[in-house]
C-alpha cells in the first residue's frame, strides 16, 4: 500500500502499547500503519528496557507462583497512588489484564519461569523471556507477519485535527491520512525543555533512563488540539542512579541501591535525608526526588570497606579513597566538611544487630536527619562512594481517555476517531507512585483495546 493511500488505523509510536494496538487492529481486519520515530535498533522506546508485566490471575501458572486476584491488584494500585487514580478505568484495566497472560503469548511473547532472586514479584508479575527487547522483537515479527506496515525513523511532527477529528499526520516530508489514530508515543521525559517548565534548571541535571525519543511531541499536539489532559505534570517516576550513566538510555543497570549501607551527602558534604527510613522498593522510589531537591542535583553514597561486598557490584566501580579526606578530594567535596559529617554521624550510631532484610535496630541518636535503621559507623578504610543523580523513568501528564481508550476532549466529549494507549495516557491510572510492571499493563491492555476499537470504528 502506498503512503499516499489512506489507512484504517494509524498508530503513532513503536513500543508495547503501539504494537499491541497495531496487532489488535490488524487482527480485526483493518489496514494498519505504524510510525516509529526511532531507527530499527532503538525501536520500542522505553519498552526495550522493561522486564516484567503485572496481570491479575486467579491461580498459579507455570510462570507465576500464586494467584493475584483483581481485588488485590486494585488494593496495590490504590496504595501506591494513594487514591490518585480513576477507579472505574483502573478496575476495567485490571479486569482486562487477566486475558493478557494468554493474549501476549499468542502474539509470540514468551514469559519465563520466575527465578525469584532479589525481586519478590514471582507471584504478581510475569517476566519476559530475554527482557523487553525480546518481547518487542516478538511483537514486531507478529505484526509484520500479519501485514502491518511499519516505518522507522518516522517521527510524526504534526497532526491535522479538526474539532476532535483526526485527519492526517505528517512525518518528514510525507503526510498520511487514516480513518483513526492511535496515539501511543510515550511520555515527555526526554524533553528537557518541557521538564524545565516544572522543575526549572534542575532538569538540566536529570538523567533519562529510557529512550531519547519520548519527547512528548504527540502529547503536545494533542493537548494543543483541545484534548483533555490528565495527571500532575510534576509527577514522574524518578530514582537515584549512578551519575556517570549516559544522559539517555542507561536503562535498568544504572540503578544503585546501597544507600542503606552508608550515608548520602550532597555537594556541601551534608546529609539530607534518613537513609534508613524504609525498605526497598519504597526507598528505591524516593531517592530520585530527594536528589533532585539538592544543589546541582547530585548526591554521594558514602560507605566503607566493611560493607563493600554486601551488595552486588554495579555498573561503574565505586570511587575509592584511603581516607575520607582523600575520597572527598576525588569527589570534589570539601574534605574537612565530609570528615566532619562522617565523624558526627559515627558518634551518633547506637549499637544494634544489623540485618538488611528487615527494619533492624541499628540507628542513630541525636542527629538530624537521623538514620533510623541499618546505621553503622563508617570507619574501615578504604572508603568508597557512588555519585548519584535523579534518573527519570517516565512522566504522568497525559491525555484523558474512556474505557474504550478513546481520547476525551476538553469539553468532556469523546473524540470522533482518536485513541490513546500506554505512557501517553498512564496518568489516568497512575496519578502518582508506581507499582512494578504496571507500565506494561497499561500499554498492553489499552493498546489492545484501542487497536480493536479503532479498527471497528474505521471499518464501520
Amino acid at each position, binding site marked *: 500500500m502506498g503512503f499516499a493511500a489512506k489507512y484504517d488505523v494509524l498508530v503513532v509510536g513503536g513500543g508495547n502499547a503501539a504494537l499491541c494496538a497495531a496487532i489488535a487492529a490488524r487482527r480485526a481486519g483493518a489496514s494498519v500503519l505504524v510510525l516509529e520515530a526511532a531507527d530499527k*535498533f532503538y525501536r520500542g522506546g522505553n519498552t526495550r528496557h522493561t522486564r516484567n508485566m503485572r496481570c491479575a490471575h486467579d491461580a498459579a501458572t507455570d510462570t507465576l507462583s500464586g494467584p493475584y486476584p483483581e481485588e488485590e491488584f486494585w488494593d496495590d494500585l490504590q496504595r501506591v497512588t494513594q487514591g490518585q487514580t480513576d477507579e472505574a478505568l483502573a478496575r476495567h484495566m485490571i479486569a482486562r489484564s487477566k486475558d493478557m497472560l494468554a493474549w501476549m503469548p499468542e502474539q509470540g511473547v514468551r514469559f519465563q519461569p520466575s527465578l525469584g*532472586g532479589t525481586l519478590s514479584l514471582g507471584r504478581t508479575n510475569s517476566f519476559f*523471556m*530475554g527482557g523487553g527487547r525480546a518481547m518487542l522483537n516478538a511483537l514486531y515479527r507478529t505484526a509484520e507477519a500479519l501485514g502491518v506496515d511499519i516505518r522507522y525513523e518516522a517521527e510524526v511532527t504534526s497532526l491535522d485535527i479538526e474539532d476532535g477529528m483526526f485527519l492526517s499526520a505528517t512525518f518528514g516530508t510525507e503526510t498520511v491520512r487514516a480513518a483513526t489514530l492511535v496515539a501511543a508515543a510515550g511520555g515527555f521525559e526526554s524533553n528537557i525543555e518541557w521538564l524545565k517548565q516544572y522543575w526549572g534548571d534542575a532538569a538540566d541535571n536529570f538523567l533519562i533512563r529510557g529512550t531519547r525519543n519520548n519527547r512528548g511531541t504527540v502529547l503536545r499536539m494533542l493537548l494543543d488540539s483541545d484534548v483533555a489532559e490528565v495527571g500532575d505534570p510534576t509527577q514522574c517516576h524518578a530514582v537515584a542512579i549512578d551519575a556517570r550513566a549516559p544522559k539517555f538510555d542507561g536503562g535498568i543497570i544504572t540503578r544503585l541501591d546501597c544507600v542503606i549501607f552508608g550515608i548520602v551527602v550532597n555537594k556541601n558534604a551534608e546529609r539530607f535525608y534518613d537513609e534508613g527510613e524504609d525498605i526497598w522498593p519504597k526507598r528505591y522510589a524516593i531517592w530520585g526526588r530527594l536528589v533532585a531537591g539538592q544543589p546541582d542535583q547530585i548526591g554521594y553514597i558514602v560507605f566503607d570497606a566493611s560493607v563493600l561486598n554486601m551488595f552486588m*557490584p554495579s555498573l*561503574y566501580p565505586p570511587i575509592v579513597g584511603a581516607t575520607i579526606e582523600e575520597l572527598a578530594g576525588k569527589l570534589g567535596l570539601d574534605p574537612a566538611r565530609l570528615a566532619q559529617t562522617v565523624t558526627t554521624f559515627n558518634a551518633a550510631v547506637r549499637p544494634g544487630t544489623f540485618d538488611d532484610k528487615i527494619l533492624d535496630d541499628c540507628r542513630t541518636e541525636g542527629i538530624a536527619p537521623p538514620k533510623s535503621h541499618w546505621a553503622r559507623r563508617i570507619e574501615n578504610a578504604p572508603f568508597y562512594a557512588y555519585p548519584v543523580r535523579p534518573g527519570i523513568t517516565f512522566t504522568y501528564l497525559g491525555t484523558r481517555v474512556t474505557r474504550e481508550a478513546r481520547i476525551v476532549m476538553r469539553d468532556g466529549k469523546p473524540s470522533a476517531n482518536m485513541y490513546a494507549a500506554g505512557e501517553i495516557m498512564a496518568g489516568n491510572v497512575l496519578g502518582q507512585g508506581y507499582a512494578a510492571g504496571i507500565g506494561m499493563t497499561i500499554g498492553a491492555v489499552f493498546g489492545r483495546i484501542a487497536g480493536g476499537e479503532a479498527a471497528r470504528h474505521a471499518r464501520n
Partner: protein
Amino acid sequence: MLATERAGSRPGAHASQILTEADRLMTICNSCRYCEGLCAVFPAMEMRTSFRDGDLNYLANLCHSCGACYYDCQFSPPHEFDVNVPRVLAAVRADSYRAYAWPRALAPLFDRNGLAVSIIAALSVAVFIAGFVGWHDPKVLFGVHIGEGAFYRLMPHNAMVALFGGVFLFALVALALGLRNFWRDIAAPSASPIDFARAGHDAATLRYLDGGGAGCHNENEKPDDRRRVYHHATFYGFMLCFASTSVATLYHYALGRVAPYPWYDLPVLLGSLGGIGLLVGPAGLLMQKWARDEELRDEPRAGMDVAFLAMLFLTSLTGFALLFLRATPAMGTMLALHLGVVFALFLTMPYGKFVHGLYRYAALLRYARERRVMSEKS
C-alpha cells in the same frame, strides 16, 4: 571529576584484552540479568560476583553461540555500553582452547588453525600416495583390487593399525590432558553420576542452542532451528562413523572378517548413514556461518571452525568416493586420499574446533553440579 568510565569495566588483571572485555560484559549482565532464562551462561554468571580467568573460560564454554542474548539485549551495539555477549564469549572460548592445549609447544597451532590444518591434510595425503607408490610399483596403486583384503594390498593391515592407532592414541592423550587443564582451571570439584547424566543430556540435545525456547538466532532477530539441526547431523554423523569403525575393528579381530565389507553389512551401513550426516551437517553449518550476522562473528578465529567443518566434510566425501570407486582402478588413489584426510583429522583434533565438544561437556558438567549444590542448599 566523574570522568565517564567505560560501563562495567573494573580494574583487575586478566591474561588478555578479550578476557578483560568478557569481565566487563559479565559485570553488566550481572546487574541486568534480563537474559537469565535464555541459557546456562547467565544463571552460572549470577552465582559469582567477580570473575577470574577460569570463570570466564568456564562461562565462555557454556555458551552455544545461539545469538539470542545479542538480539534481546537493549545495550548491544550501537548502544554505547556495547554489549555483545555471543561474539566476546566466542573469542574467549577460542582462546581458551589454545590456553589449555597439550603439549604447550603445539598451542600456536590454534593461531593459524585453518592454514595449519590445510597444510597437514595436504601433506598427509601426499605422504600416503607417495607411500603407496614407494611400497609397491605404481601399477598396484592404479590396479583393480577386489574381494576380501583388497585395501591391504595397498597397505598392510598392521601398518594401517600402527599408523592410525598411533595417531589416535596421541590425539586421545593430548585431548585428555587439555581437558584436564581446563577442568582444573574452572575450579571444578568432583561431580556425581547424576551430574554426568544431566550434562550428557544437555549436550546430546543441544539444550542451550534454543535461546530459551524460540530457537537459534543466526542471520537476524528471527530465530529458527537450522543450526541445531545441522549440528545434530554433524555430531550424530560423527558418532555413527565412529561406531562403524568400532564394529569393523570387532569384525576384524573377533570374527576374522576382513574389509572391505558388502554395502549391506553393518560397518558400511553405519558408515554410510554417518557419512551422510557428515556431508549435510558440516555443509549446513558452513552455510549458516556465511549467513551469520557480521556482528555475531568472531572473524579472527573463524578459520578454526571452517577448517574443522571442511575436514569432516572431506572425510565423508572421500569415504563415499572410496565406497563407490572401490572396484575400479581409482581405488588406490581414493584410499590414499581418504586415509590421508582421516589421518590429518586425527592429528589436528586436539588443536582445533573438535575440542569444543569436550570443553562444552565439561562446562555443562560443572554447571549441572553447581545447580544441584545450589538447589540442595536452598
